[in-house]
């Protein structure tokens, strides 16, 4: 079954080995169709309000002053001139705000983390660190005052990369805990197998820092009612309850007095699951007792929030001559940036994805996070998995070359099989389709045909060289088993037959709300227009960890499906009383509960209305779902590139993404997520890098941070393998983070194939490619 949709072909593969546990594939009304995101009309007309668009009466405007030097001690902040500007209310800085510290990454109450940050600190640790905040009646006054603040800073020696920091030791005092944070060595698998006669291979990668570049920068509106003590925070965030624990603990506010509401989010990719903007806004609201709004500039979004870490990694392996790796050893250094934030966890969690596509009998993992005077590292789509697979895939390409094996064959040799155990967690990989992704992909991509064609093209020599590459990757669908993963849902049936759903979701702009409504509408067999669902609001929606870890569709979607089934059961139970017919003789279908053997039934709305009038009861159910599985979810991507050996520019000529997704919920939006992942991944592979200048300032402008734009993004062919998972809603597994994992290795592999090279310092910018070629680098046989 193939749908041709303009520039993109989306194919659906239904394998017979696994029968969908729900309904037949073709009878579903909503699942697998394409629906626009819930607020697309508002977004198309300018009516949708993002946090930076919100205004409330009496609102004050904030402007943030950030450091221009990378390391130093603040001796004085002179605000005299700034305060003299008409309409300036006050200036907050390290000498007049709370001394309490927080961790920007915390998202669960009681999470044990180092609290290294203050809202404003008297120690500056990076260019972009927060120094002060002007509070003013108008944005113009705030900006003018910002330029008049005088800050006296004693500079300290600085290092903007982990190697320099480690070798020099100059950052040993950057935090009371020091600058190096080791991860406990992990040895995985049984005893070391017999390694005699094996091939030993060692490879390494240097991955530079990336920025999320969400089109909407971080923003927040905060209000404080001095009469009631109520603090309200409106921001585009991925975890209302996570943000609540951090803000409430930081400012010593009871949890019930702090309300966090998720606003329309202009993209996240991980950048809005850590808290840099909201603490400043809340400090200003508490200080003034008035509503305040803060929007980060693009420069602040690049320097003063979070980035994907820079990373150095080495991979060593012992492999049999047939390419099967028997033992693998990874060593990873994560450049944490100026605050540890999530980096120690990030460094540790990388190895938890080691067995999510391949299986290795034995593995060892060592890692450390190192603080430097760089933008703070944090969550980024994939949370370390794209980096891990870049290192693994580069290793496989090197090994394949040494052993004269095809890159797809060596991967198949090592790919995990359905039912294999994840060696790290001891849990089953369930319905993993790693091998199927490679096999289907190389057939659809015509891998071997292209291989021959490229050989013929390149042997002619000349300016342009072509190459092909494959990238594989796996990911998870939830926190399980690292952390218990649960979701609460409530549903109310209104008297007119509409369903009001209450759950904590955070739409990043990738259609979470519509996906949940599709699942609920499918389950209740109701028109989707009758299902309503809001987003996270700590005053109203149930406790939830947040929308990250690729858990939303798999865990939250399943919770929604189960709750909808519970609502159906409740409707039958209510109808049974109202109709005086045993529940076992009733069925719910198409919005009506009716006797199985015929006769008049009651519509869902009638049941709700009659229950209210005659039983004095609302038709209401709540459900708590605890997820206890995390099957393998994988993808294999294939790229053909052409490298201009004069300029070092790379054109991606063909691109295929095969995704083992279990089941697609919203087809076009899912395809768009994969295509979007390829667009970001292509940037990470070829052009996007945050680099420091001599003053220690990193790339802070889109002029210098090169995103792939519309003419440069390749047409992406997509193949979904949809044979259902056991526990996901309608068989769905995750997609958002996974989709970016195979992209960089596929493109980098293709460039290296084109040049007969082994380039491993990413991104492969034109400069790096040209430098390689200038050093006699072209080595095509």
């Amino acid at each position, binding site marked *: 079954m193939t749908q041709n949709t303009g520039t993109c072909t989306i194919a659906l593969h239904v394998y017979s080995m696994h029968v969908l546990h729900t309904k037949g594939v073709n009878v579903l009304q909503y699942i697998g169709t394409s629906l626009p995101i819930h607020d697309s009309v508002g977004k198309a007309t300018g009516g949708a309000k993002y946090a930076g668009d919100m205004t409330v009466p009496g609102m004050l405007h904030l402007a943030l002053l950030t450091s221009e030097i990378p390391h130093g001690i603040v001796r004085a902040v002179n605000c005299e001139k700034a305060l003299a500007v008409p309409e300036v209310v006050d200036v907050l800085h390290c000498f007049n705000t709370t001394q309490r510290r927080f961790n920007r990454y915390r998202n669960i109450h009681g999470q044990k983390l180092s609290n290294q940050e203050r809202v404003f600190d008297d120690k500056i640790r990076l260019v972009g660190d927060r120094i002060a905040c002007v509070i003013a009646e108008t944005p113009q006054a705030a900006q003018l005052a910002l330029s008049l603040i005088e800050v006296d800073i004693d500079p300290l020696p600085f290092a903007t990369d982990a190697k320099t920091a480690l070798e020099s030791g100059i950052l040993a005092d950057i935090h009371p805990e020091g600058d190096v944070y080791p991860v406990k060595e992990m040895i995985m698998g049984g005893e070391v197998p017999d390694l005699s006669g094996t091939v030993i291979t060692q490879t390494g990668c240097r991955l530079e820092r990336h920025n999320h570049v969400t*089109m*909407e920068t971080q923003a927040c509106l905060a209000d404080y009612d001095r009469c009631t003590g109520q603090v309200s925070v409106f921001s585009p965030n991925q975890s209302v309850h996570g943000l609540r624990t951090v803000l409430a603990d930081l400012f010593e506010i009871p949890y019930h007095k702090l309300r966090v509401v998720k606003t329309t989010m202009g993209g996240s990719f991980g950048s809005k699951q850590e808290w840099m903007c909201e603490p400043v806004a809340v400090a200003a609201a508490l200080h003034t007792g008035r509503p305040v709004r803060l929007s980060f500039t693009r420069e602040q979004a690049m320097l003063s929030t979070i980035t994907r870490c820079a990373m150095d990694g080495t991979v060593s392996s012992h492999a049999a001559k047939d390419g099967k790796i028997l033992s693998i050893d990874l060593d990873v250094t994560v450049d944490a940036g100026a605050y540890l934030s999530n980096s120690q966890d990030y460094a540790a969690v990388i190895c938890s994805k080691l067995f999510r596509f391949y299986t290795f009998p034995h593995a060892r993992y060592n890692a450390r996070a190192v603080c430097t005077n760089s933008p703070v590292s944090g969550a980024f789509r994939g949370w370390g998995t794209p980096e891990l697979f870049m290192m693994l895939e580069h290793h496989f390409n090197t090994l394949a070359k040494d052993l004269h094996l095809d890159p797809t064959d060596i991967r198949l040799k090592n790919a995990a099989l359905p039912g294999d155990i994840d060696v790290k967690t001891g849990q089953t990989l369930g319905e993993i389709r790693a091998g199927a992704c490679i096999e289907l992909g190389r057939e659809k991509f015509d891998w071997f045909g292209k291989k021959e064609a490229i050989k013929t093209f390149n042997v002619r020599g000349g300016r342009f060289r072509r190459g092909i590459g494959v990238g594989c990757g796996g990911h998870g669908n939830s926190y399980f088993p690292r952390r218990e993963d649960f979701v609460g849902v409530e549903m109310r049936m209104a008297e007119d037959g509409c369903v009001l759903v209450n759950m904590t979701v955070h739409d990043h702009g990738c259609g979470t709300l519509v996906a949940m409504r599709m699942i609920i509408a499918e389950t209740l067999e109701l028109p989707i227009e009758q299902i309503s669902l809001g987003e996270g609001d700590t005053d109203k929606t149930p406790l939830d960890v947040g929308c990250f870890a690729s858990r939303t569709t798999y865990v939250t979607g399943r919770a929604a499906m189960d709750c909808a089934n519970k609502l159906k059961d409740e409707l039958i139970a209510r109808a049974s009383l109202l109709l005086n017919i045993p529940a076992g003789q009733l069925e719910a279908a198409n919005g009506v509960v009716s006797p199985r053997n015929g006769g008049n039934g009651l519509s869902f709305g009638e049941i709700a209305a009659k229950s209210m009038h005659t039983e004095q009861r609302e038709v209401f159910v709540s459900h708590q779902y605890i997820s206890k599985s995390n099957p393998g979810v994988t993808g294999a991507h294939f790229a053909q590139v052409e490298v201009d050996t004069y300029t070092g520019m790379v054109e991606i000529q063909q691109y295929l993404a095969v995704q083992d997704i279990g089941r697609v919920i919203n087809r076009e939006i899912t395809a768009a997520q994969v295509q*979007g992942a390829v667009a970001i991944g292509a940037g990470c592979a070829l052009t996007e890098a945050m680099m420091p200048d001599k003053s220690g300032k990193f790339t802070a402008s889109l002029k210098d941070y090169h995103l792939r734009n519309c003419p440069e993004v390749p047409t992406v062919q997509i193949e979904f393998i949809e044979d259902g998972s056991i526990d996901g809603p309608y068989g769905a597994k995750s997609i958002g983070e996974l989709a970016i994992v195979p992209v960089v290795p596929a493109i980098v592999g293709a460039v290296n194939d084109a040049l007969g090279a082994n380039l491993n310092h990413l991104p492969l910018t034109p400069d790096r490619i040209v430098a390689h070629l200038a050093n006699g680098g072209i080595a095509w046989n």
Partner: protein
Amino acid sequence: MELNFTVNDKPRILAVSADARLVDILRDELDLTGCKEGCGEGECGACTVLIDDKASHACLTVAAQLNGKKITTIEGLGEAGKLSVLQNAFVEETAIQCGYCTPGMILSAYALLLTNPAPTEADIRTALAGNICRCSGYHQIIRAVQRAAKEMGGAR
């Protein structure tokens, strides 16, 4: 200065400073917040509006350049309560995700269709080169523009 210009077909007279940016005038003075600021330096295209029917960066245009000009923002496309053909195509083709680039993207596409009612895919890609979308890979956006061109009678 006194700024005398037309915004979404309505004549406007505003007292603003000569160096006030159009993006701020639209957002702060006229509450037209569909015009988004993404970078402030003309790199991302989120603030794109039409000035005399040409796609322009509202973050790089100041009041002193605007007297007598005709500005069209996203709020000025379509009639009240009804989407324009192009807006509808963006919705129907699922060309909208986080939506922050959408107003600028639609206005760049609108400016293209004004001068080139039957654009090729390459024409569309070039016209949208200055508008960054970070969510999608542009496929649905290109399709939406193709669909609108067709529905407006000019498609190839």
